[in-house]
């Protein structure tokens, strides 16, 4: 017991109506990379918030190096040597890198000194950063570096990482792992949370699996298959997406030379994008966030009209048409941002169903709404896609991410699109919901529709796509059949690593001296 860095004993935390953590106990050894696995809602976030001092447990205790550890706030946790990289970046867009780092430290040095330290540490660990740049202008990968460097500057004993790789290219992931292994070798323990099971098998030495707030298994992930791990999380046999055939039919959607200027200072222009989508085909588009995914979806859905001659649906030029007109013709889309883009959070599921289903499901006549039909449509989506909700009158914002995503996707699929464009269909969705969504997309293609899946999850694209391409700075890489692609080839299509170097041993030694 004494050789553990952090020991959790019987941690319990209940919220009204739900027990988030129920008698959770496990240990993290010094220098160990420990995985915390579980579906959404399994209690992972509550648990790490407890360790970081944001949540006080109802019962149970923690020991850090054998002494009782009960941080009253994150400051106390940081003082004790616990640092955390958050899932949703806890960064301030309008502030500079150095200011962001200073906010995460309790006793920051002067701005100039801090800038020098940031440069030094970030370069030593292969995560170069300019301390004077405004965070709002950085790419997702660079923002994550800011978070990591902020933690490293405090020489943490325990580094908590919540879903750190969702925005990185495979090469960047490899470099991050090299950095993490190096940290672990130096004696820093890492508590690593991820949905990506292959990564956990690759990186972690020990794993604790949570289900519904309880510890259901501990194992060495290197000895298990990804499927074993997933089934431990879900507690049942996992349904793998499967499909037959994949025969391509007539051309449904044709995009030629699609170029659009960036919609804002922070956007990406689209440059000469061209592809052909046939009936029954799933086209996977990979790429790191911020390389034109949102812009491509907006151009295809009709949110931003395109010049004539660039987008045609079954031979008809639809570039100038608005989303409703494109929907009527059978081109449907589901954007990435669930709350506020794909769905209006304050409105009920019925109202949200009406917002996109109006045209194809004929939910209104002459501007008057048929509430009964709208409710039936919403209810069909809920039943068919197993959306867990009290009913169609629940506000969209009250649903968990996975359930709302199932609703958003299901709402479009039930309208029987000819072409369906979806961005990040399974982002932040747990394994079983993700499998259901992927299967639904495959089933849709099976019925003869064309599906464009834009995603940053490469495993997902490899699972379901017939053809693969990637967006890099608004350009589309040449389209290749998905079967037989190696992860290295995919990484190169995505633009490779963005100026990251593998951590430099000597520089690290210097920094620590």
């Amino acid at each position, binding site marked *: 017991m004494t050789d553990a860095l952090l020991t959790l004993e019987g941690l319990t935390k209940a919220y009204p109506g739900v027990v988030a953590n129920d008698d959770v106990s496990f240990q993290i050894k010094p220098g160990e990379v420990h995985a915390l696995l579980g579906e959404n809602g399994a209690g992972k976030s*509550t648990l790490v*918030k407890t360790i970081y*001092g*944001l*949540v006080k447990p109802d019962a149970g205790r923690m020991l850090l190096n054998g002494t009782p550890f009960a941080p009253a*706030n*994150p*400051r106390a946790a*940081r003082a004790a040597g616990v640092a955390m990289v*958050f899932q*949703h*970046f*806890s*960064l*301030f*867009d*309008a*502030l500079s890198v150095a*200011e962001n780092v*200073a*906010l*995460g430290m309790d006793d*920051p040095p002067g701005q100039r000194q801090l800038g020098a330290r940031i440069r030094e540490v970030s370069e030593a660990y292969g995560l170069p950063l300019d301390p004077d740049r405004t965070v709002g202008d950085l790419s997702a990968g660079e923002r994550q570096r800011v978070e990591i460097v902020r933690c490293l500057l405090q020489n943490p004993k325990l580094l908590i990482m919540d879903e750190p790789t969702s925005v990185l290219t495979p090469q960047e992931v490899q470099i991050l792992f090299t950095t993490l292994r190096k940290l672990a070798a130096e004696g820093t323990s890492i508590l690593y949370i991820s949905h990506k099971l292959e990564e956990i098998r690759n990186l972690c030495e020990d794993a604790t699996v949570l289900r519904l707030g309880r510890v259901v298994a501990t194992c060495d992930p290197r000895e298990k298959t990804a499927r074993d791990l997933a089934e431990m999380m879900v507690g049942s046999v996992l349904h793998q997406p499967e499909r037959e055939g994949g025969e391509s039919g007539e051309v449904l959607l044709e995009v030629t030379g699609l170029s659009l200027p960036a919609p804002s*200072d922070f956007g990406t222009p689209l440059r000469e994008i061209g592809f052909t989508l046939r009936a029954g085909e799933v086209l996977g588009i990979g790429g790191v966030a911020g390389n034109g995914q949102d812009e491509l979806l907006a151009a295809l859905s009709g949110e931003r009209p395109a010049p004539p001659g660039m987008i045609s649906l079954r031979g008809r030029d639809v570039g100038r048409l608005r989303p409703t007109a494109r929907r009527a013709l059978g081109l449907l889309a589901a954007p990435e941002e669930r709350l506020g883009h794909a769905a209006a959070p304050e409105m009920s599921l019925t109202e949200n169903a009406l917002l996109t289903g109006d045209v194809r499901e004929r939910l209104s006549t002459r501007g008057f709404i048929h509430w009964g039909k709208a409710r039936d449509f919403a209810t069909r989506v809920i039943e068919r896609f197993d959306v867990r909700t009290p009913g169609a009158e629940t506000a969209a914002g009250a649903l968990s991410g996975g359930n709302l995503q199932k609703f958003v996707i299901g709402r479009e699929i039930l309208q029987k699109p000819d072409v369906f464009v979806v961005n990040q269909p399974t982002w932040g969705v747990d394994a079983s919901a993700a499998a259901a969504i992927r299967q639904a997309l495959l089933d849709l293609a099976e019925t003869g529709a064309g599906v464009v899946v834009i995603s940053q999850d490469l495993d997902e694209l490899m699972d379901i796509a017939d053809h693969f391409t990637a967006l890099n700075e608004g350009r589309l890489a040449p389209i290749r059949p998905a079967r037989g692609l190696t992860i290295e080839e995919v990484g190169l299509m995505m633009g490779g690593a963005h100026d990251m170097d593998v951590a430099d041993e000597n520089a690290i030694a210097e920094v620590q001296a």
Partner: protein
Amino acid sequence: MDLGQINPVLLAASLMVAATPILLAAIGEMVVEKAGVLNLGVEGMMITGAVVGFAVAVNSGSPAAGFVAAALAGAGLALLFGLITQVLKSNQVATGLGLTLFGLGLSSLIGKPYEGIKAPSLGKLDIPLLSDIPVLGPVLFRHDPMVYLSLLIVLGVWAGLKYTRAGLVLRAVGENHTAAHALGYKVIRVRLAAILFGGASAGMGGAYLSLVRVPTWVEGMTAGAGWIALAIVVFASWRAGRILLGAYLFGGVSVLQLNLQAAGVAIPVEYLSMSPYLVTILVLVIISLRGNHGAPGSLGRVFHASS
């Protein structure tokens, strides 16, 4: 019409006096908005400060006591706003509008017995040597202490936000309250402090109207000064330097148009009266056309601690 009546030196000297109420109110509101809170009650806090400051100054004979009381009154009203919006999580826009209406009503109630009285004079701060410089002396160095205090407050706010840790935390809270909370900063406490500062500044700005600028109590005497202060904050892109520019521009045009009216220029009075508002907003719009506007990311959003 006799433009020769207008003395440019006197005009420039009265510019600073005319601008001070709005400068105080705007710089206070800027701090509030930098912390992510939109308080539309500036007008109400100003006029409450005006009447309370006036009443205390008349009864005690001390204008300084009047300013202190005005700051406290403005902060008191702001505290009400802070409790309702930060603790009870009400909508900031509706609450701020309510605060303005409440302040206008409250001030006319308190002010009834004080109508038609003249305020005790604050006195000028004749800075030796400097005030004897020709032209610059009367323009810059023969004002009352509040003019210089307001400039010090602007300087302090600028430096405080830019160079101190407290200022950094305040900006962080206004930029992204969820992240600030996750890092362990007390979002609501920071915001309440900012709201109190904004209220005190607005209260002092109001008192400057009733004690120095006019100097008497007239019902509804702020006449939209609080609203122009709010507009200046937005068009100044939340920057202290531009707020100073905007307020002095507004003060300058106000004084100029009064002089033009007195000189009998053949422009309808209504146009002259609206000119300060038009010119100020026009100039600041042109300045803010380019570049980043920098509205705080969490401005006006209600903060719910998630745990």
